[in-house]
């Protein structure tokens, strides 16, 4: 009985001490202040898509494999080169970023971008027509003070964010 009480007391103290330790030790935080700090994602991150229409052979495999039915093929004529072909359009309302379309594209016409912030002011902007897909996604920094950071795995702190 007495031993149990002492043991309990000891563990209460230990719990409070670990709390104090984290309270007083500086700079351990895992939160990324997202709109203020934009992470630079690793290479090969499966973000939004970009189309290189010169490479596209209009085979339609991307629209056949897409599990979400996000890709439609559209007849498209390039403004400058006047090249004509059936090229994919992506509906980001449906896309689940699985990356299947990129992997199956035989001519490497579809590319990954590392951008994943598919947030728009207007709903229609979520639909990427061919010409916008060729330009690829662009995001304006959401805040004035946004800056880019790189996250690194750290043995002591878990994750640290370095300014890029």
């Amino acid at each position, binding site marked *: 009985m007495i031993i149990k009480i002492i043991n*309990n007391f000891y*563990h*209460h103290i*230990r*719990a409070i*001490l*670990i*709390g104090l330790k984290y309270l007083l030790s500086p700079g351990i935080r*895992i939160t990324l202040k997202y709109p203020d700090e934009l992470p630079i*994602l*690793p*290479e*090969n*991150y*499966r973000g939004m898509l970009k189309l290189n229409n010169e490479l596209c052979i209009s*085979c339609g*495999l991307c629209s*056949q*494999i*897409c*599990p*979400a039915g996000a890709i439609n093929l559209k007849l498209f004529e390039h403004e400058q080169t006047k090249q004509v072909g059936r090229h994919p359009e992506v509906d980001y309302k449906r896309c*689940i*970023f*699985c*990356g*299947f379309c990129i*992997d*199956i*594209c*035989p*001519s*490497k016409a579809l590319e*990954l971008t590392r951008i994943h912030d598919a947030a728009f002011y207007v709903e229609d902007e979520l639909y990427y027509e061919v010409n916008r897909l060729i330009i690829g996604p662009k995001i304006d920094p959401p805040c004035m003070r946004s800056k880019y950071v790189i*996250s690194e*795995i*750290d*043995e*002591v*702190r*878990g*994750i640290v964010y370095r300014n890029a």
Partner: protein
Amino acid sequence: MKTSLSKQQDNRKEIELFIGPQHPASGHMRFIGRVDGDIFTNFIPDPGWVHRGIEKIAENRKWIQIIPLVERAAILDAANMNIGYVIALEKLLDIEPPPRAQYLRTLLCEINRITSHLYGFGIAGIMIGSSTFYMWPFADREPLIDIAQLITGARLTYSYMIPGGVRRDLPQGFKEKALKALKYIERRLNNDYFRIFFDNPVTKARYQEVGVLKRDDAIRLGIVGPNLRASNVKYDVRKVEPYAAYPELEFDIAYEKEGDCYARLLVRVEEIRQSIKIIRQILDALPQGPIIHKKYEKLVSLRKLEEYQKTGIFGLPAIFTVLRPPAGEVISRVEAARGELIFHIISTGELRPYRLRMVTPSFRNIVLFRELISGARVMDFPAIYGSIDYFPPESDR
């Protein structure tokens, strides 16, 4: 299950309590309980609020398109859902992935097991009010999610395994990063977590001797996963029916004797330790070689093959859009983070499966609510809920 519960009964002593689906602790489901003073005299789970009809949708998808679909059952355990389906599909196609792919699959599955258990810890923590033990495991998933993201390119929805192998090889410098993350999580688990939560006398008071599941009951009810092993049953599909690279790896089955809430949490702690051990072994003994079955390697375009040899990213062969496995019926069993996951697939040799049956671990554990909470105190309900690590979307599919 008795459903007459919601009807008025003439026992004026009891009140009927509907917990959920809009309630801080119910998750995506509802519970109907009868309370007498501070005791639940009867407690019935009422699932189905996040039913998405995955099994039915699967009948309208091509074989390859089902991979992202089944992941959605339990998004924080995506790799284990994925491997279950892919193993079944490979049985139909009668192919065997090369050893390196097997190891990579196992690697991702174990990372996912850790993150999934950490998620469960967080929920268990907030259920009994420890906000720190809610935030800590959630924060500590982050390094592990980061390394999973390095392998697959996505944070949670990996869709990493394809029939015949995996989609990508490890990137450069992966091993060091992974080892760092493992070291971090090991230190946190063994020191900080125990000091603030598992050894905290309040936690012990809430968990010990609460919601005891006896060995016989656990077997009779068909409980799976850590909840089963906490009741002193050493059953783990990874040992019973080894798949992927598990036969070549060394690990122990985590189990506890007591069968109470505390034991269920400790089993998960031990499983995380075992997973860390497995990942270390994989990183040390990763065999060289291709990551995809040679039958498919030959089928991709030249440009893709070049890329594969250079960067290790394998493109899907075009045949995947018209994959027609031969007619047949297969069953696969894998050990997902919450327990045994079963896929039963019937193929008629068409573009789409005739029937896909998915028996998820949470679905088999749901009966625990009735068994353990009936007769428990009202405040034991969140403690027990947290300890069985039940995930409504996984159960509802």
